[in-house]
């Protein structure tokens, strides 16, 4: 169990005070893959560094399994850090060391007996699928392979928590998915908690079970990933989801705003399906029941870790009262409906 209680981080800069993290409360269960999403400057990188004491909160407490990380110093903090792995956007491997030597480094630091070091490191290299590359230098590896070394290195001292700071942001989509699969694999095999910082909703959807959305130092929304995808509350959350479900959301935005001006009488609605409902013929039922016209503008289905999520943009025309009834009927079928009144392009 990891708890953040009223975390604040204020930096003194030449231009005055800068609040990077502004009163964050979170609790993360053991075994969670917990995502923290936000745009750059939202304070998420500062926040993730508080879990291993690389940053100290100005006020508030970080507690991991009952021990207050934020109050630890010196040797006590360093020995706690050995049980918290961390991986980075730019991998941060030592170029002067081979793959094997990079994985050995945390073991050397922890003072693991020499004899055990090598077999442990080799076991980890196997776990991340890099056997045969032990003697390669980082400069000879691809980005995905480098991150695998980073993961092996982070797991060396059998941590209970793994921190991922934009760990896939420097990777191409294919490699990103491979690394994410590896993280899920590790989460299940080693039963460790993973905290992921990212600006990509895709990462959250693929592997997280819970998510917190950060904006200007605050957590503005938090919950189970499926719930957040189903019913996003905040504008920023909707934006993240839209970017993920429609990679070409800008095109959709243009199409929507055109339709809004061309057909002021109709209504534009955004339907969000999940789980079972993705298999239901919702639209055809509506057309049969109500005298309305439906015009599908854009649709997609995304696979989340625990469920699938469908997204559909539809123009609905007809008598206003009937439209209202139809929308109500869709809602009754347990599909989320959002009426779009204006689009910010």
């Amino acid at each position, binding site marked *: 169990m990891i708890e953040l209680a009223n975390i604040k981080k204020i930096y003194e800069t030449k231009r005055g005070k800068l609040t990077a993290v502004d009163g964050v409360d979170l609790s993360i269960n053991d075994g969670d893959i917990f995502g923290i999403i936000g745009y750059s400057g939202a304070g998420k990188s500062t926040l993730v560094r508080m879990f*291993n004491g*690389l940053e100290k909160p100005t006020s508030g407490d970080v507690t991991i399994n009952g021990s207050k990380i934020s109050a630890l110093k010196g*040797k006590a*903090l*360093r*020995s*706690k*850090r*050995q049980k*918290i792995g*961390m991986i*980075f956007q*730019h991998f*941060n*491997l*030592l*170029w*002067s*060391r081979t793959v094997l030597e990079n994985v050995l*480094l*945390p073991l*050397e*630091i*922890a003072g693991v007996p020499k004899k055990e070091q090598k077999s442990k490191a080799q076991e980890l290299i196997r776990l991340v699928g890099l056997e045969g590359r032990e003697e390669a*230098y980082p*400069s000879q590896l691809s980005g995905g392979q480098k991150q695998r070394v980073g993961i092996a*290195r982070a797991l*060396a*001292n059998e941590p209970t928590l793994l*921190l991922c700071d934009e760990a896939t942001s420097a990777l191409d989509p294919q490699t990103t998915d491979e690394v994410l699969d590896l993280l899920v694999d590790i989460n299940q095999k080693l039963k460790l908690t993973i905290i992921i910082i990212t600006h990509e909703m895709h990462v959250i959807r693929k592997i997280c079970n819970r998510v917190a959305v950060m904006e200007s130092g605050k957590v503005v929304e938090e919950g189970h990933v499926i719930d957040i995808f189903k019913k996003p509350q905040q504008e920023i959350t909707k934006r993240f989801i839209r970017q993920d479900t429609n990679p070409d959301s800008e095109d959709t935005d243009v199409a929507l705003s055109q339709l809004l001006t061309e057909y002021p009488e109709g209504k534009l609605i955004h339907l969000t399906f999940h789980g079972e409902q993705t298999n239901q013929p919702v639209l055809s039922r509506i057309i049969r029941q109500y005298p309305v016209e439906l015009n599908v503008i854009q649709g997609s289905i995304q696979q989340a870790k625990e469920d699938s999520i469908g997204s559909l943009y539809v123009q609905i025309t007809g008598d206003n009262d009937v439209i209202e009834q139809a929308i109500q009927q869709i809602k009754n079928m347990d599909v989320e409906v959002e009426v779009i009144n204006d689009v910010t392009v």
Partner: protein
Amino acid sequence: MMLQFNVLAASILSQYTDFEEIDWNKMWEATKETLFMTVGSVIIVFILGLAIGLILYETSNQHSLAANITYRVVSILVNVFRSIPFIILIVLLIPVTKQLLDTMVGPKAALPALIVSSAPFYARLVETGFREIDKGVVEAVESMGANKWQVIFKVLIPESLPSIAAGITTTTISLVGFTAMAAVIGAGGLGNMAYLDGFQRNKPAVTLAATVIILIIVFLIQGIGDRIVRRVDKR
């Protein structure tokens, strides 16, 4: 006209090639003295430079007042000693050398000035080398629970080894140059040969031979240095 020029050139050339004039035993002694001064000072410059470079790196951009003051003081000292022309520094340090080594002539007497002039220069190169290391790598190793010494010996030094090696090569070569100047305090060596035997006794061949030997020494140092840099650089 042409003939005159040829005769002149031949006479100059003959002065330079009058190898009979050279006392090779003395030349060998002088070579050994130059090597002694260079190697002796380089060893100490290397250790001192690393230490000062480390102090500069560790105390720069820190919030604590003590670190700030340390950085300022060390930085000013480094800049001052780096800026004093060697020929002046060696004379300036004569009383110190006398106290320290109980002598003011001979190759040993040149060591304090050689070290004081080069260690600050090398310290700056080391500091720059440390600064070029990706901060993220240091952070990653700190996140593993490394202490300061582990960061220094497992990250800072190994990751800046190419700069450290290239820096000591440059420093060594400039030290060879300085040893030649140390002749003014009677430190011996090839500079001494070139000046006293070659110039003052009017034997240009001696000067030429001393020059060639110094060039060979410099090229050897450069060659070895380059090899080491290539060897350790796995980027």
